[in-house]
């Protein structure tokens, strides 16, 4: 993910102005996403390392139904997106859906879903969830709309990573979520720290970011320290 592009920072700032409470943040994100794009509704589903973990937020009944159907049936665009890590863009569910997802398509069409766009929320091997956008009428997203949807997906990724850490709300701000552009080092350091601290990559990324935030330094600097052996996470400062 391109982390904090300008638009992602804007989306997060807007959310923070509305609320700093975890569940309200997720609800706010799907609302804002649904309003910013020509879609009928948006759902946010959580994935953990053990598999799907349920719906975090949905704008309306059809969006909720869309998520529930997929978890019940074990098939659908969101399931494909989380398994493969690829976006699944289905502009005309009636035309292609029944062949691709025989069980899901009927239920989704009956719920009023005519087009689905499922965006995996991931940072390389770290997979935190899927953002599902649906439309009551068929039609593809334009490149501009796709760009906007991807910005919301990036914001959702950062938000879910944050929520998984259960950090106190007052320690958190959109700025604390930022990741720098030169992030190959950050991802390499995430790998190193996951081994040093014996934690998952998702937790390791959070640890690196938390240290940067605590020390008021750019994440890239902390990452370079990790790679050069100047910073060590073998002792876990946050535990």
């Amino acid at each position: 993910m391109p982390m904090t592009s300008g638009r992602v920072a804007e989306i997060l700032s807007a959310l923070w102005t509305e609320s700093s409470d975890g569940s309200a943040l997720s609800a706010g994100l799907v609302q804002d996403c649904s309003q910013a794009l020509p879609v009928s509704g948006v759902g946010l589903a959580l994935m953990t390392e053990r598999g799907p973990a349920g719906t975090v937020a949905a704008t309306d009944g059809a969006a909720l139904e869309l998520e529930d159907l997929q978890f019940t049936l074990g098939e659908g665009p969101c399931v494909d997106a989380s398994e493969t890590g690829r976006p699944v863009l289905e502009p005309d569910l009636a035309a292609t859906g029944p062949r691709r997802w025989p069980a899901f398509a009927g239920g989704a069409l009956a719920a009023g879903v005519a087009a689905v766009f499922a965006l995996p929320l991931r940072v390389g091997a770290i997979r935190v969830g899927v953002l599902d956008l649906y439309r009551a009428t068929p039609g593809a997203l334009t490149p501009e709309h796709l760009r906007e949807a991807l910005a919301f997906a990036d914001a959702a990724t950062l938000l879910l990573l944050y929520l998984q850490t259960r950090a106190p709300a007052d320690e958190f701000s959109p700025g604390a979520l930022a990741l720098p552009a030169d992030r190959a080092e950050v991802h390499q350091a995430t790998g190193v720290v996951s081994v040093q601290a014996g934690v998952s990559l998702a937790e390791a990324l959070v640890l690196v970011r938390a240290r940067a935030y605590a020390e008021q330094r750019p994440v890239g600097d902390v990452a370079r320290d990790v790679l050069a052996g100047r910073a060590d996470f073998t002792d876990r400062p946050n535990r």
Partner: protein
Amino acid sequence: MAREQRLAEVFVELADTLVEEFDVVDFLQTLTERAVELVDADSAGLMLDDQRGRLQVVAYTDEPTRLLELLELQNDEGPCLDCFSTGERLANIDVATSWERWPRFAQAASDAGFAVVHAVPMRLRRQVIGALNLFTRSQAPLTGEHLAVVQGLADVATIGLLHERAVRDQVVLAEQLQTALHSRILVEQAKGVLSARAGLDVSAAFQLMRNYARRTGKSLTTVADAIVANTLDGDELRRVAGRP
């Protein structure tokens, strides 16, 4: 002709990676390395549109080149960015005469010891999806024939990214570009994991991963996945791929 022979071999090699289990990072990495070899350049880098209004560096032959490309992105200036935004090829750009046009890029490129830069667009019909960049230390310009080879490689890169299905529309492009960017991140994460487990620096870790992938015919992403999942360790990598 030795070069023509080699050129044919490279295209066959790249075509092979397209029919086997396709790995986008490995493919683009190989492509940058072969580009350097075929036209006697010193290094190469490849950037892709991230579909969020920015470019991302996805393949590079060495660290100084990656840093130079990142610098272009950070400063929002340089031949690769101009090539991407105009869709036009920039060939044989003399760094010494680029100070006015791209002051910070010219400084960084000359600090890194590069004298000449080339940038060719990766084009899908009218859309530009990325750029392949080459750098040379000597003043020797690329011939028209060399440039045709480089453009051919950039076209192959575009085809490679989109080959898995017929190009319907934006859908496939979006899926492929997003997958390419995340595969790159996965490989970076695996480099870090392997370097910590096996006591190597990250470039040695990457070399070991690539050698192992080559020897076993597995894709680089598959190898990276296995390292991250801890089902493949440094000992096994070394046993199969040799000590880096």
